[in-house]
């Protein structure tokens, strides 16, 4: 029915929007979901090809998505086109904003590493005096994490130290490979824990909103979804001052439309949700909206080779992956940096990349043959400190394809992050040498901010409306019927892949919202 008043408008269809839709509709609440992009139908949009059939032989087409280092010619069309939805930054401090506007958003493509935050992150300020504590602790989140882990079918072992809380896992009891055992033996005397990797298995290899969350919502008959709906502004009731829907433009036809709802839930992804709030002039009585943008440092690490696994002796020696949770600044204090980093560790039975050899031609080919199946990798996932000055604001000098003002991203890493990356590589080298591995290549420089695709903050939660945008239920301090359920609510990020936390927060916020609606408080 046209111009119908929905109970809840959900903007965004990724993990956070999908979870909100599932929880709310299962409680009988009628939801309207808007997504800025089309539905991806693999039977229509995807086919298997060889790079030799493509015009650019697999290289990313020049100029298409310059800031998506993860892209190549095969997947270039899934990312948001930087021409279509631009953003700006100081050229001296680039930002890699990696976006997907397909239905399901980035939940279609994430790496599925699944970790809980611990109180070392949620109450980090109490631990080391830096920054601000979250208004909630790990005990508040634990029951939601457990349910999310069940839905996403997370594998792992119950081997985490306090900084890596255990969860509701499908237990991984596979033995460590001998190369991993050597690594563990090198790490243990240094007090460095090595745990089984934790990863969402989902269903059929996909752990996305489109297969794990949205089908449940659709089953209720309470969800209506619109694709290609690019939201321009959230609208406000003139009498009450409360949000009451939104104006959107059809991505393809440019037709201007509007919808109405009693409650607005933003789930467009950290920076798009904040951009929408800024463009709508909402939820910013604190002046904090847009600030405290953080992510995680990626890109630093090292590639090693296990000598005994070379020349065809890989089998039985190599294989498996591990997570080394943060070990700095837990029991001791580093004088080089606050907080800490994790290492992703993998023992590979595949090819070793040619970049690891200063050789070419037949000489290189001999090395590739000899080293095949002996690669051992360590890469960093490091915490970026929350800083007020790392922020986004609207850049009114530029608009996107639909005339919506774009974001200016102003963020940079500091010595805390650079020192952390250096420490990770030095520590990795020490471990490799102790384990008897040869270090082939290393890099201690992080990729540009944004690269991890873990942007968080900019609408942080807190108990004080003067210093935070949302309360502990992801609800705007300023507008009781406005919620932001994606990564924008984070106060700090830790080193952990944020997906499990985003999902748990969205589940928790949605149940709170449903309760408030049933009590007619909203």
């Amino acid at each position, binding site marked *: 029915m046209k111009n119908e008043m929905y109970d809840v408008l959900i903007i965004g269809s990724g993990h956070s929007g999908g979870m909100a839709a599932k929880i709310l509709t299962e409680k009988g609440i009628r939801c309207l979901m808007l997504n800025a992009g089309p539905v991806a139908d693999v039977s229509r949009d995807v086919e298997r090809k060889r790079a030799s059939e493509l015009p650019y032989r697999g290289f990313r087409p*020049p100029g298409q998505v310059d800031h998506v280092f993860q892209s190549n010619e095969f997947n270039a069309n899934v990312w948001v086109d930087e021409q279509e939805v631009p953003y700006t930054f100081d050229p001296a401090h680039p930002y890699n904003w990696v976006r997907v506007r397909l239905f399901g958003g980035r939940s279609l493509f994430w790496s599925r590493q699944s970790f809980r935050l611990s109180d070392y992150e949620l109450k980090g300020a109490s631990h080391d005096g830096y920054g601000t504590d979250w208004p909630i602790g790990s005990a508040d989140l634990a029951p939601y994490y457990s349910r999310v882990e069940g839905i996403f079918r997370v594998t792992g072992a119950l081997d985490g130290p306090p900084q890596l809380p255990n969860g509701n896992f499908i237990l991984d009891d596979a033995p460590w490979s001998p190369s991993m055992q050597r690594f563990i033996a090198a790490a243990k005397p240094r007090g460095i824990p090595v745990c089984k990797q934790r990863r969402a298995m989902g269903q059929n290899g996909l752990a996305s909103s489109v297969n794990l969350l949205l089908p449940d919502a659709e089953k209720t008959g309470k969800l209506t979804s619109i694709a290609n709906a690019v939201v321009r502004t959230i609208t406000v009731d003139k009498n009450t001052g409360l949000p009451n829907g939104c104006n959107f433009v059809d991505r393809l036809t440019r037709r201007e439309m509007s919808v109405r709802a009693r409650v607005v839930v933003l789930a467009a992804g950290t920076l798009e949700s904040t951009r929408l709030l800024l463009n709508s002039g909402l939820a910013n009585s604190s002046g904090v909206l847009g600030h405290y943008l953080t992510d995680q440092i990626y890109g630093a690490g090292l590639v090693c080779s296990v000598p005994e696994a070379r020349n065809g002796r890989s089998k039985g020696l190599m294989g498996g992956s591990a997570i080394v949770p943060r070990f700095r600044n837990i029991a001791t204090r580093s004088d080089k940096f606050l907080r800490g980093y994790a290492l992703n560790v993998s023992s590979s039975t595949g090819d070793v990349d040619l970049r690891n050899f200063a050789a070419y031609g037949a000489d290189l080919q001999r090395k590739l043959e000899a080293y095949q199946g002996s690669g051992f990798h360590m890469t960093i996932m490091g915490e970026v400190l929350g800083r007020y000055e790392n922020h986004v604001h609207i850049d009114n000098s530029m608009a996107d394809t639909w005339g919506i003002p774009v974001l200016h991203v102003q963020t940079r890493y500091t010595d805390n992050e650079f020192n952390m990356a250096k420490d990770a590589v030095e520590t990795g080298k020490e471990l490799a040498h102790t384990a008897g591995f040869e270090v082939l290549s290393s890099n201690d420089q992080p990729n540009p901010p944004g690269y991890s695709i873990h942007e968080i903050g900019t609408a942080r939660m807190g108990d004080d409306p003067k210093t935070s945008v949302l309360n502990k239920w992801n609800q705007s301090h300023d507008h009781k019927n406005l919620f932001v359920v994606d990564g924008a609510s984070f106060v700090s990020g830790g080193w952990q892949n944020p997906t499990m936390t985003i999902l748990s927060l969205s589940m928790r916020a949605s149940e709170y919202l449903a309760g408030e609606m049933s009590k007619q408080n909203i």
Partner: protein
Amino acid sequence: MQRRQFVHAVIGVSVVPKVLLGQKAGSASLPLPAPVPWTLGLNPRTPLPHTVEADAVAESVPAFFSERQMATLTRLADVLLPPLGDKPGAVLAQTPQFLDFFIGSSSAERQDVYTGGLDWLEAEAQKRHKTPFADLDNEQAGVVIKPWLRTWMSDHPPTELHADFINIAHGDIREATVNSAAWNATPTTGAQERTQNELYWSPIEPDLYGESAACAEGRAHVLAAPRLPQFMPEYKR
């Protein structure tokens, strides 16, 4: 404007077959009187013409590198990736011609790495061997190239002058060759790289209107990152 007319034309023809197919359903047993409109037979059973990649039969016309640069690049590609076993080398895979096209359409920063690097190689060859790089034997070329080989991790190529070009070009030459039709056509053994074979995503409901109208008028989008002495990978890809 042309593009919009094209879109309208496409929309127009897409409507026609449904109408005609509807007519056909009503008189299925009777052959239609000739001439049959071409649109009638376009359906999922219509045989598709078989085509080959242009590379398979056509020569590409060099358009970006100078003749001297192209000769240097061709020799460099042959030295870095010669034919090995059954596999074609970079030259047989037409990698220099591909790079002329690919680098020619890449960012100015990446173009500069190549043109500067190729000119430097030629100057080094003249200085050390008093011979154009294109005419150096493998040993002579090795004297110029080997001091600049480095190991590196993805997204972080060497930033040192000359080492940047040698290592970036080596990676590109290797990838372009492995992903060529000539490489793919020969059997792969051992640790030889395989031609990438992945899921290719077509443009999904592409926004032709935006592409032709709004965006064409906008100014350059995200500003390019300049070279920095530290921290960020300045490898403009």
